[in-house]
């Protein structure tokens, strides 16, 4: 699956995205984060405070209980601050 990062998350990870293969146990967005934090200290740090994270699957905002299966693009970013 294609992961994309924005703003503070992008900076914390030092990249604007990466391709990952989630293990079978990863069903929801929340599961995905549980697994992502094990990848590296940078990931652990970037995803430490989930209250400061928002998610989109195929460019639609979702909550952390949304299922990732079937999505091709999974975005993780801070709360939005436009306008």
């Amino acid at each position: 699956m294609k992961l994309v990062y924005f703003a503070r998350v992008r900076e914390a990870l030092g990249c604007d995205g990466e391709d990952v293969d989630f293990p079978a146990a990863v069903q929801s967005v929340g599961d995905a984060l549980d697994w992502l934090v094990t990848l590296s200290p940078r990931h652990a740090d970037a995803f430490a405070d989930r209250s400061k994270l928002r998610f989109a699957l195929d460019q639609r905002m979702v909550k952390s209980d949304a299922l990732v299966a079937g999505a091709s693009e999974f975005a993780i970013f801070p709360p939005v601050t436009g306008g």
Partner: protein
Amino acid sequence: MIRVSVQREAFDIAAEIGALEASGVGALATFTGIVRGGDGVTAIELEHYPGMTEASLSDICEAAQERWALTGCTIIHRVGRLDVGAPIVLVVTAAPHRAAALEACAFLIDRLKTDAPFWKREYRGDTALWVEQKASDVERGQDWDG
């Protein structure tokens, strides 16, 4: 008529109003957001999620058109680096009656603040800090659901 644009360039308020005026309405409302200085801020930089941002602005316009009898709505949001005093966002609504135009305009800018994937960084000289989402913006966005 819905028009959304995410762009680096400045927008032309008179032209955008003129485009909706031509639709033969009675009332036009606009909101323009301008980069605010103060607290040492010298400039801001806006990042967005290409594709999703445009789709989300269109969704917000469609939601407004379902709630109010509008003949058109336009949202233009700039991205990239902007100096203090620069216009950053423009919302224009057109309707037969003033209440619809005014309320929809407030709705669009409130929803944009909570739903559209933009992220703002403030520069104070060379120091850049990401802006935190305001609780008051989240509350204003939710007020429209009540």
